[in-house]
């Protein structure tokens, strides 16, 4: 399982094919088959790249006019989102998205890292085979099911316990924390498992307890991998839409409490797209551009941190 995960992120300096010199000793038929396969895989990669490129181009072209109309700065820092009345400020949406993500991370990351430590260091093999599929199953549940669960089950309970309608940051945090758990847990577990066995043995040999080994040796050694895992979790949390739209309540203001309805960058698109026209529709594409840039920042920061980590190691 762990090997599988690592295969998803191949080292850039490893060539997956034999070099040309070794191909010269094999038959022509084999040579063409190899070449055809190589081009097939190249095509697959091109489709992925073209997909990203086309989406970015389309969203960019559709959304750009709103930046020209209201100005990029005004769009980003305007405090009022009321497109049908001509106000296109997405600051409340940005703040709300960040609040939703931060809370989910505070709740979800420790839980996920704890789960990973348990799976990698504490659990017996038998228990591990029971717990790991359960965690992986969490990642497989469609987000709309999380949302429905939140709307129908969680929201009324929160409304009863804390007053209000049950919509709000608190409800979203609980749902998102569970949703990002499998992402962070799986990648953290991989990071912990890739710490060489010798380091564990050295720690035990010096008389460290299990807890000391985990806390002082393993977690610091797997630090870079864990940070990557958390950033991927952040990306998942900020991009999540269906689950959030069902329990956020969709008020287009910065909420004045964690039990008050709010709207995020992703949910505004779901809520407004069915009826938006003209500048309103363009503004929604503008929001999509901002989301695209945020997710690019996450991916870039993972790359930078990983490179930084490799240089350190």
């Amino acid at each position, binding site marked *: 399982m762990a090997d599988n995960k690592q295969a998803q992120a191949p080292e850039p300096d490893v060539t997956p094919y034999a070099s040309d010199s070794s191909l010269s000793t094999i038959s022509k038929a084999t040579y063409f088959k190899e070449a055809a396969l190589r081009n097939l895989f190249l095509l697959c990669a091109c489709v992925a790249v073209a997909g990203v490129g086309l989406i970015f181009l389309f969203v960019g072209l559709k959304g750009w006019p709103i930046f020209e109309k209201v100005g990029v700065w005004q769009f980003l820092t305007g405090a009022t989102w*009321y497109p*049908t009345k001509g106000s296109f400020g997405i600051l409340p949406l940005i703040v709300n998205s960040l609040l939703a993500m931060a809370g989910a991370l505070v709740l979800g990351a420790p839980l996920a890292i704890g789960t990973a430590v348990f799976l990698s260091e504490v659990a017996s093999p038998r228990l591990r085979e029971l717990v790991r599929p359960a965690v992986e199953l969490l990642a497989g549940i469609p987000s709309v099911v999380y949302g429905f669960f939140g*709307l129908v089950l969680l*929201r*009324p309970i929160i*409304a*009863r316990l804390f*007053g*209000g*309608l*049950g*919509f709000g940051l608190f409800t979203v945090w609980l749902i998102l924390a569970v949703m990002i758990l499998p992402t962070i847990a799986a990648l953290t577990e991989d990071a912990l498992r890739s710490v060489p066995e010798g380091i564990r043995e050295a720690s035990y040999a010096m008389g460290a307890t299990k807890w000391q080994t985990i806390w002082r040796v393993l977690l610091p050694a797997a630090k870079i991998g864990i940070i990557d895992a958390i950033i991927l979790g952040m990306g998942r949390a900020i991009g999540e839409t269906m689950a959030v739209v069902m329990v956020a*309540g*969709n*008020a*287009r*203001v910065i*909420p*004045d409490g964690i039990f*008050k*309805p709010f*709207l995020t960058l992703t949910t505004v698109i779901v*809520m*407004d797209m*069915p*009826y938006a*026209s*003209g500048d309103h529709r363009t503004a929604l594409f503008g929001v999509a551009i901002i989301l695209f840039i945020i997710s690019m920042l996450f991916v870039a920061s993972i790359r930078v941190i990983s490179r930084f980590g490799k240089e350190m190691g």
Partner: protein
Amino acid sequence: MRISRSAACLAVAIAAVCLSGLSGCTKADGASQTSLTVTGSTTVLPIAEVAAEDFQTANPGKRVLVAGVGSSAGIESVANGTSDIGTSSRDLKPEELTLGLVDTKIALDAIAVIVNPSNPVTGLTKAQVSDIFQGKIKNWKEVGGPDLEIGLVNRDEASGTREAFSKFVLGKADFDPTAAVLPGTGQVRSVVAQAAGAVGYISLGFVDSTVKALDVDGIPANEKTVADGTYPLWRNLHFFTKGEPKGLVKAYIDYVLSDEIQNTIVRDAGFLPITAGGK
């Protein structure tokens, strides 16, 4: 209304082209007309559309084309002859009275203000409802209820119910932007049913025992008060025709007004049969 004027005109034009393409005959030739165009309000759309499907099934060879482009565009298109029927969720404006349009009322749309059944408040004045939905009144104790925060539940801007409620209650004022915005009648009802301090609004036809409809200005919200015109939050839904309806147009309108359609399609869409009213 919500759709831009140019888009609406385009839709009407397309509908007109479709019509002329499908039936070679002119409108004046009423008896042999095989196709008619119904354009206008998105609120009326569910009735007009489902009724059109059933009408076509019942009258093989006849075609009814239905488009939702907004009340104003619907009235405009029937006035200039591109549609046979213009549907509307509002009365004619003074400047539209001279267009020679004949009004056939086809259903009643009443909106109920709903709260949780545990809420002891049984009625509000229209002004109080307005203040609540503007966010000026934030606690039920200000309107004679318990010390409980009001949880506002609003509809999305695409909703015809929201548009009508806004016009009836708020006038030119804006909704409180901190209110929860939910995309459907069912969601509003279930949220209000589950949260003690919640208040929302839905079409009267969708009120059930899980929520409590408040009296407005002392008038309970039910079919009787809507029928006699005393309950303040209601409107007629209209079919406008250029001159008295005849031929296929009349057949379709009579079909929509039949008891069968009124008690099934109209009620299923959350509206009240026009026979319940009469005013």
